[in-house]
């Protein structure tokens, strides 16, 4: 059965293209992140990360360090 444990989802306040760009270097250069995107079009501004190694807490810490809200989307 296909499982989706490698898709990590977060509710954030990354609301604009500028916010997204501010985080881009951090997320792009992280070798553990296969792919990421933020849904700027929707109210939860969901950050979606594909990673086979990272845990939710690690991403939350990383994003919060840059001054953004970030909590696990359950």
């Amino acid at each position, binding site marked *: *059965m*296909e*499982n*989706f*444990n490698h*898709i990590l*989802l977060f*509710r954030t306040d990354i609301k604009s293209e500028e916010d997204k760009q501010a985080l881009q270097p951090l997320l792009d250069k992280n070798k553990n992140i296969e792919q990421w*995107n*933020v*849904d700027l*079009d*929707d*109210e*939860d501004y*969901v950050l*979606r990360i594909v990673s086979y190694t990272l845990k939710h807490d690690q991403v939350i810490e990383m994003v919060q360090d840059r001054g953004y809200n970030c909590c696990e*989307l*359950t």
Partner: protein
Amino acid sequence: MRTRDTEKEKLVKKIAVETIAKGGFESFSMNKLAKACGISVATLYIYYKDKDDLLSQLAVEHGKMLAKSMLHNFDAEASFEAGLRQQWENRYRELINNPTLSKFNDQLRASVYQDQFLSTLMEDALVQFKRFNDNIISRGEVREMPFEVYWSVAFAPLYALIKFNNEGQSLGGKPFKMTDEMLWEAFDLVVKGLKK
């Protein structure tokens, strides 16, 4: 462990189509969609990268679906009258039997997803319709004219009747329910008008 559930995915698509048919794209949100489906927002984002991904997929799927239903039993080599009759029949059944779908398709046409919707639709259907049109002109059944003129005369009466029917009223709020007799009466007039 999260796993993919095709029943849930079907439900998501169904509710998304209904919501957009009713309220358009403006107020549509993943959060509201998840609530309406009784699933978590996270589940939605497992299936779809983002809102745009969901809506793009819906646009492409519906373009394909519409092309399929428009081409049902249609033969590009048929005579003008038989070929046009099948096109009327297909569009009529599709739009009357499925008012939600037809409203959703209208919304798609007016949205940023119109290119994805129309290009998928056309990719499958356009070749057939073009061949039919070339045939009827080369056989001398219909005289040559700008495609838009042909299309307007050939289909606008059908869409006007369907619109009256689906809205339940015609001009000035007069209650209206379309019958097959009315459909084919209008069709005969169109054929008369277009046939050389």
